[in-house]
């Protein structure tokens, strides 16, 4: 009847499942990273060598790339904070008009793929054909361009548009979490509103501002999109584009690995610093909760503030949609896409004739669907194991599940390339390698959302099921999963959205048959097929928007903001 002995904490099926998930996680990360390290010390014939590092360290162009990366990241970090802080403050604490709209648009910039924003800005401010420069020449009659986006400054500008939302989320969350009583206490002690802002509020959010700087710096450092689309034509290489260039024929895997590892170490250190700055709250959640803090009357100053905020969000999100649509739908660029100037031809071409675009969209959707689903299952189980301490050393599970966060996409791709182009698992050339890349890279999103949700479920509910006769797996499936459905779903949507726009890993791992949408965009860009590029880009934006909208409807609250 009743077994007299058994293991505490679970039956065999449950224990086996937990272990399986953990082992899978360990393999997902350790296998490619192990190969990355190995390849950086490998001489091409299987022997040990330091030559890769020596070559990496002795060539001027790698040092140049490192310096460029540093310039780019530092500028973007500083500027992000300078843009994000007033934006966040104006939304959280002032009577600026259109606060809700600005906030939604700022979050929209977060989900707008950066490579599309970069493309849009080339269409606007490219040195020769850029619309603004043409306008400038025709108005002034001067020769040179007004802006040249294909420059270091241009790259910094566009990267800033992609990275400032990360700083914005952290800072606005901190501003919303400040108790109004702290400010009231300063007021009652005799400080004016402005002085309170300066001596109380700002110091309180200083860690968040610093953390926002570090995060924007980090994002800029590992970014591939803008540096590739704007930096490469401008002959300004950064570390990520340099690693990518090493993969052009003939691929130099060893040197690429030797360049990747230091980048990995830097991102690890930076993310550690960022976590420290934010304290135990390692991640930031944008809850829609109304702030009880009082509102500062900006007087007439609320209008300039509004214009500033509006310009920022238009430049980072709104413009991308308008420009890509206009370009794709116009016969003549620069005139409104209406009447005789309107054409549907480019969209038709992309959707029905252009092989790479069709394949790319299909593959991207398959991958996003697969990666999101598996990431939620794996992330959910891992979060359960870690939150409920189901295995010895469960704390390490959480750490490991979040580890892909620190791995730059391109670095991970170098490792994946080495790991899966050889037995026992040859995945290169199939969608599987991209699936593994997306799954691992975005697992932290699924893990985090699940863990947050599981934290809010009392273990009593699960124990009640156990003592009622349910085994570990049944309890998980019948009690825990239904209760954390929302968290799992929001993780699913996030992984889906991020998978759809993934470029930095895909660019090294795709083959002709496994091209994905983002890579198809990049290919069209390289061949200069601007109308089709715009059409495909706009379709991608549209899919993205629809998915986000469905997410909002299903989940009923803001979930886009959740990201460390």
């Amino acid at each position, binding site marked *: 009847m*009743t077994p*007299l*002995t058994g293991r505490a904490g679970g039956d065999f099926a449950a224990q086996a499942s937990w272990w399986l998930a953990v082992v899978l996680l360990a393999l997902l990360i350790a296998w490619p990273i192990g190969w990355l390290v190995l390849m950086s010390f490998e001489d091409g014939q299987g022997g040990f060598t330091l030559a890769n590092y020596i070559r990496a360290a002795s060539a001027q162009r790698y040092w140049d790339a490192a310096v460029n990366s540093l310039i780019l990241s530092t500028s973007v970090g500083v500027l992000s904070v300078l843009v994000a802080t007033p934006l966040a403050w104006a939304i959280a604490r002032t009577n600026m008009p259109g606060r809700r709209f600005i906030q939604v648009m700022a979050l929209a910039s977060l989900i707008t793929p950066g490579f599309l924003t970069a493309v849009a800005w080339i269409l606007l401010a490219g040195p020769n054909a850029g619309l603004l420069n043409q306008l400038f020449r025709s108005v002034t009659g001067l020769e040179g361009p007004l802006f040249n986006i294909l420059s270091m400054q241009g790259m910094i500008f566009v990267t800033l548009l992609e990275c400032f939302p990360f700083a914005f989320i952290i800072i606005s969350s901190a501003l919303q979490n400040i108790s109004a009583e702290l400010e009231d206490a300063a007021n009652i002690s005799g400080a004016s509103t402005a002085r309170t802002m300066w001596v109380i509020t700002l110091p309180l959010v200083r860690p968040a501002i610093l953390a926002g700087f570090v995060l924007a710096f980090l994002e800029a450092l590992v970014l591939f999109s803008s540096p590739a689309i704007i930096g490469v034509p401008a002959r300004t290489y950064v570390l990520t584009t340099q690693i990518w260039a090493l993969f052009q024929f003939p691929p130099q895997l060893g040197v690429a690995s030797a360049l990747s590892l230091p980048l990995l170490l830097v991102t690890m250190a930076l993310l550690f610093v960022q976590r420290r700055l934010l304290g135990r709250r390692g991640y930031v959640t944008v809850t829609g909760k109304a702030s009880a803090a009082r509102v500062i009357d900006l007087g007439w100053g609320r209008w300039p503030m509004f214009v500033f905020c509006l310009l920022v969000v238009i430049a980072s999100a709104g413009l991308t949609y308008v420009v890509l649509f206009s370009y794709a739908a116009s016969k003549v660029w620069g005139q409104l896409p209406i009447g005789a100037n309107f054409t549907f031809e480019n969209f038709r071409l992309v959707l029905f004739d252009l092989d790479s675009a069709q394949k790319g969209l299909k593959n991207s959707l398959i991958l996003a669907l697969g990666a999101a689903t598996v990431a939620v299952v794996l992330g959910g189980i891992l979060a359960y194991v870690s939150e409920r301490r189901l295995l010895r050393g469960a704390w390490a599970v959480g750490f490991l599940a979040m580890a892909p966060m620190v791995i730059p996409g391109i670095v991970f791709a170098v490792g994946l390339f080495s790991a899966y182009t050889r037995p026992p698992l040859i995945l290169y050339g199939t969608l599987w390698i991209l699936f593994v890349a997306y799954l691992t890279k975005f697992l932290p999103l699924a893990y985090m959302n699940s863990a947050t949700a599981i934290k809010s479920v009392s273990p009593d509910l699960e124990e009640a099921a156990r*003592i*009622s006769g349910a085994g570990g797996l049944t309890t998980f499936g019948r009690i825990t999963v239904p209760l954390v459905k929302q968290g799992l779903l929001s993780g699913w949507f996030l992984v889906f959205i991020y998978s759809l726009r993934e470029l930095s890993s895909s660019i090294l791992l795709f083959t002709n048959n496994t091209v994905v949408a983002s890579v198809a965009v990049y290919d069209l860009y390289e061949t200069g097929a601007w109308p089709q590029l715009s059409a495909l880009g706009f379709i991608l934006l549209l899919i993205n928007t629809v998915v986000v909208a469905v997410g909002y409807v299903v989940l009923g609250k803001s979930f886009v903001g959740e990201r460390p």
Partner: protein
Amino acid sequence: MASVTLTDLTKEFPGAKPVTDVSLDIRDGELIALLGPSGCGKTTTLRMIAGFIPPTRGEIRVGDRVVSGKDGVVPPEHRRMSMIFQSYAVWPHMTVFDNVAFGLKMRKLSASDVKQRVDRMLDIVHLKTLAARYPAELSGGQQQRVALARALANEPETLLLDEPLSNLDANLREEMRFEIRRLHDEFGITSIYVTHDQAEAMVTADRVVVMNAGRIEQVGSPEDIYDRPATRFVASFIGMNNLLDCRLASGKAIIADTPLAVEGATQTNTNGSLVLAIRPHEIELYSQTARPSDTTNILPGTVTRQSFLGDARDYLVDLINGQTVRVSARPAMRASVGESVWLRLPPASCKLLE
């Protein structure tokens, strides 16, 4: 039905030992209360019995089955126990019916059997009309009843209750105390009830186990615990707030040079330190001018504080040797701060403890 036997049950964590060598025989059909302050180890003990925490040492038997011992630990789902949680732990995503039916479905009963049993249980806890509701639509008391029905529907051998009433308001708590006792009498399930509320333990339990710092201090009937506390801890925990240092001489307790007749003075140990334990409301207070006629066991003192509590007056009285005595007197008995008074400690109320 089954007895539950704990033998040298011990739980150790790095840097903490929440339960130490707990041995206890719980008879078949008995309702036993584990009583003690928070952190005394009562909940850890209960969770070891349930199978949620593996013990470091010791054995747990249910009837003649070892459910936890040297050879391993039976997982909770195979212990044929039920548990009522402090938080009710009623599953919010299931209706009342599904909550109660869960354990029965786990045991793979036929749908008609499940329905029949659930209906009967809901009838017993007066929730029949609410079967289709979700927990969020129920009051706290109703949720507690769902938890009770869910626990009993499974026909467990052992029922575990972890502070089941502490989330309820005072009126409901009183009602539910009797409800739990009623259901126990009806089903006769061996029950272990964890609480920090002595009144709750007294009302519901056949026997009370007082725990402190991971150890059992005393096991006994409610009367035993109340009238014959075995240790200073038990005495103070169940309301004998006055623990007066004393020494023993020729069968009397000496306090402030006054010999007092006490219960338990025949105990021979006079070497260790002794205390005289007495409840505040058992002490009689007299003003200086109205010295009691019965002059055994009277002590002089000075009022240092008084407060009016409605149904009683609470006094702190300093004895001449500096010890402070708390007295709960009738409201009509007035004495102001600084006034000299007489205290009479009836011999039957004075317990001598080591």
